């Protein structure tokens, strides 16, 4: 057997639940994962080759054939398209010398698309290998590609001062934090983590920590808003030989980037939150599931974990207590659906990210079948502040039912895109003023899976769990933007990211996208709108996970808020043919056949 593959296998003790790591190691060494490597991995793991491929082919960034020495992925979101994406796209094709989804003739650079890479505040942006480049212009593209062609690595180009990749300065050199507000709950500087944890462990048994979190009324910041204290209580009570704490850093919802900034500015807040969770539920193992798009944070985070180990906050006998806990980082590989906690767990187990059937819930049977508390990055950071300052301090901010603050990732038509820490209870209008929104008309909150707001109609509504229960993504669009095109883009996103395991999401999503295309093309009728609504309800009702149930949201919500933009496009059927029937297109195959016949003769 190939020595490299053998060493990858032994590095993970031939444990097939670590297949994601093995695939990354092989790809990082060899540039892609060859058929031969697949067979050898499969043999070593006692799996069929197709079973290895099942995982490999599910993820956007795993390559089963060569795709250049360097891989360039340009982010193609709605926000990127508002900021010069098309010019940058053209420049990339020209400078690299190939079109998208191709490799240039010399085999140096492969060029591809990516969905949101967590940089909506500085688009257009692209990933090159494991680093990112932001605020791209054609000139910048020319410079970067030129340097790659001269033989420089992406890292050398992004980090010319050669700052160590374990330092915060490295992360800062690559991306701007764009932190726009003063610290209220999160981002507190200069925290003494050791004494915070020491005090917490000295004065609280695990049940006290759960009680404290419950009293603070902290709710999950990932979007679902599940009470964190209750989750930990259930985790404590659940029976299992092992228990796990997973930090969901998959932040894939388009428009969100708050976790990127938390992980780069207050990573130890998140680690401390994980330790508190572990202490509360009785776990010895933690996992940070980090999306591949944030690879440039990996070594930095690894260093933060090591700092905690060195200071005795992680490892055996934590701060002299009979409490053991350690954390590993699990890299994702490009799949939006892995933000779903059960898909994320499948991915951590080395499988394709198919969301599981629920019940059972992860807190009962999660990672490796054991009770698992999956918490959002921001939730854990909040928890670290609660164990420091107490429940009463935390719940003094916000409203009675939505305590604390909410991080907003703001992008789109505003003067100051970036991260805002707002108190729950703040209104949409207040946020629009804060961010310097320019002539805002439409606001998409919580990403495409969330809600569409009209600034005119919804301006006085409050961000809180009973009203605008936002997961942190906030995209602003002014009066000049084409709402239908934005919605079509979102529906395409859901089609691309569907895992494909359940019928309504896999098949119905495509039909919804086609309906949007038909309406935009001016071939839609009132009947199409009615079908959009009933088909949307089918997806919402019957899909297996949140991706499918949320996929119709942008269509339904904009139909409700901006019915006029749809009405404007509708046509009335004249004569026997449906407006959606394109005679020219229908006849094109015939014409082509005739042409081919003529040529043959």
């Amino acid at each position, binding site marked *: 057997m190939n020595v490299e593959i053998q060493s990858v296998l032994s590095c993970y003790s031939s444990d097939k639940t670590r297949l994601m790591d093995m695939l990354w190691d092989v790809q990082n060494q060899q540039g892609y994962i060859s058929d031969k490597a697949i067979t050898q991995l499969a043999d070593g793991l*006692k*799996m*069929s*080759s*197709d*079973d290895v*491929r*099942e995982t490999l*082919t*599910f993820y956007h960034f795993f390559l089963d054939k060569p795709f250049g020495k360097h891989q360039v992925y340009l982010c193609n979101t709605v926000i990127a398209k508002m900021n010069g994406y098309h010019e940058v796209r053209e420049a990339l094709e020209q400078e690299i010398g190939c079109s998208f989804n191709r490799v240039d003739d010399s085999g140096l650079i492969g060029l591809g698309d990516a969905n949101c890479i967590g940089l909506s505040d500085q688009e257009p942006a692209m990933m090159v290998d494991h680093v990112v480049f932001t605020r791209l212009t054609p000139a910048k593209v020319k410079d970067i590609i030129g340097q790659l062609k001269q033989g420089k690595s992406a890292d050398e180009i992004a980090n010319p001062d050669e700052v160590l990749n374990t330092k915060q300065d490295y992360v800062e050199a690559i991306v701007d934090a764009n932190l726009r507000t003063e610290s209220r709950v999160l981002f507190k500087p200069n925290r003494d983590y050791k004494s915070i944890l020491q005090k917490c462990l000295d004065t609280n048994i695990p049940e006290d920590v759960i009680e404290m979190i419950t009293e603070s009324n902290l709710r999950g910041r990932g979007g679902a808003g599940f009470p964190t204290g209750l989750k930990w209580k259930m985790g404590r009570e659940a029976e299992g030989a092992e228990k796990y704490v997973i930090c969901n850093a998959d932040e894939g919802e388009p428009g969100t980037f708050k976790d990127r900034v938390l992980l780069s500015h207050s990573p130890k807040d998140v680690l401390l939150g994980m330790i508190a969770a572990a202490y509360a539920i009785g776990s010895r193992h933690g996992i940070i599931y980090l999306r591949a798009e944030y690879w440039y944070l990996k070594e930095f985070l690894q260093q933060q974990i090591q700092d905690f180990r060195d200071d005795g906050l992680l490892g055996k006998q934590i701060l002299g207590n009979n409490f053991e806990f350690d954390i590993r980082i699990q890299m994702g590989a490009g*799949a939006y659906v892995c933000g779903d906690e059960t898909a994320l767990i499948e991915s951590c187990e080395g499988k*394709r990210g198919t969301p599981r*059937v*629920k*019940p059972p819930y992860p807190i009962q049977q999660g990672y490796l079948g054991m009770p698992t508390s999956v918490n959002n990055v921001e939730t854990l950071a909040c928890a670290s502040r609660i164990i420091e300052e107490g429940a009463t301090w935390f719940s003094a901010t916000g409203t009675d039912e939505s305590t604390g603050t909410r991080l907003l990732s703001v992008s789109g038509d505003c003067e100051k895109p970036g991260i805002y820490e707002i108190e729950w209870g703040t209104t949409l209008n207040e946020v629009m003023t804060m961010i310097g929104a320019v002539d805002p008309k439409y606001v998409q909150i919580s990403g495409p899976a969330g809600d569409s707001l009209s600034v005119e109609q919804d301006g006085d509504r409050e961000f809180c769990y009973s009203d605008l229960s936002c997961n942190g993504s906030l995209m602003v669009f002014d009066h000049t933007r084409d709402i239908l095109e934005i919605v079509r883009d979102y529906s395409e996103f859901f*089609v*691309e*990211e*569907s*895992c*494909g*395991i*359940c*019928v*309504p999401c*896999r*098949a*119905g999503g*495509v*039909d919804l996208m*086609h309906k949007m295309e038909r309406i935009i093309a001016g071939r839609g009728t009132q009947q199409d709108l009615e*079908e959009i609504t009933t*088909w949307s*309800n*089918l997806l919402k*009702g*019957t*899909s*297996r996970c949140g991706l499918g149930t949320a996929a119709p949201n942008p269509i339904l919500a904009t139909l409700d808020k901006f019915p006029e933009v749809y009405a404007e496009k509708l046509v009335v059927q004249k004569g026997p043919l449906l407006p959606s029937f394109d005679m020219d297109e229908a006849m094109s195959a015939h014409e082509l056949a005739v042409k081919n016949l003529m040529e043959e003769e």
Partner: protein
Amino acid sequence: MSIKLTIDGQEVQARSGDNIIDVAAQNGVYIPSLCYVKGKPCLGTCRTCSVKVNGRVMAACTMPVSDGMEIEVNDDAEIVDMRKALVELLFSEGNHNCPSCEKSGRCELQATGYEVGMMVSRFPYRFTPRVVDHASKTIFLQRDRCIFCQRCVDMVRDKKTGKKIFSIKSRGTHASIEIDAELANKMSPEQVRAASDLCPVGCIIDKTQGYDDPIGKRKFEIKSIKERALEKEHR
């Protein structure tokens, strides 16, 4: 533990922990399904068993019954139509030419189509090109008909090594069912037949045997899928 719940307004008794499909069948109510196999872990992929539970749409195969549950199967026009729409989606997504299919008459998708009263798909037919895989000596993989139920992926294993014989490649609209020809060639004729019977459509086709029953004498022509589902429970 015995509990009470209602199905279409009818009060019934059930064992706590059983799923809704089984409980309904025990009480003479048929709920269509294309992925669920009794006694096997529930797959929850086809969603055609969707019912309303206390007003919310749920997949009946994934949901254990609990005391006081109000289940609507046939009483609610919306949910009846949703199940029909899901079956129609499968017909428009793949390429299903029943008259020429070896599985016709013993195909669960076809039989379910009849059961939900489908005449034509309301969704546009896509005519997606899908490639047949005939690399295995004993099995044709007719991908035109695959509905991604995952039965074969989850329930068919190499007898000796426990390795997966069938798997899914890629995701979403690009997904395709794959067969490991080397492992498939080691399957016994009985295992091939069982895999072919397990497939709810005509995707896994036994190369060595076919068209053995004439029209009119085939499985679901003798007894409908509904009768069969209910009969098993009344046994």
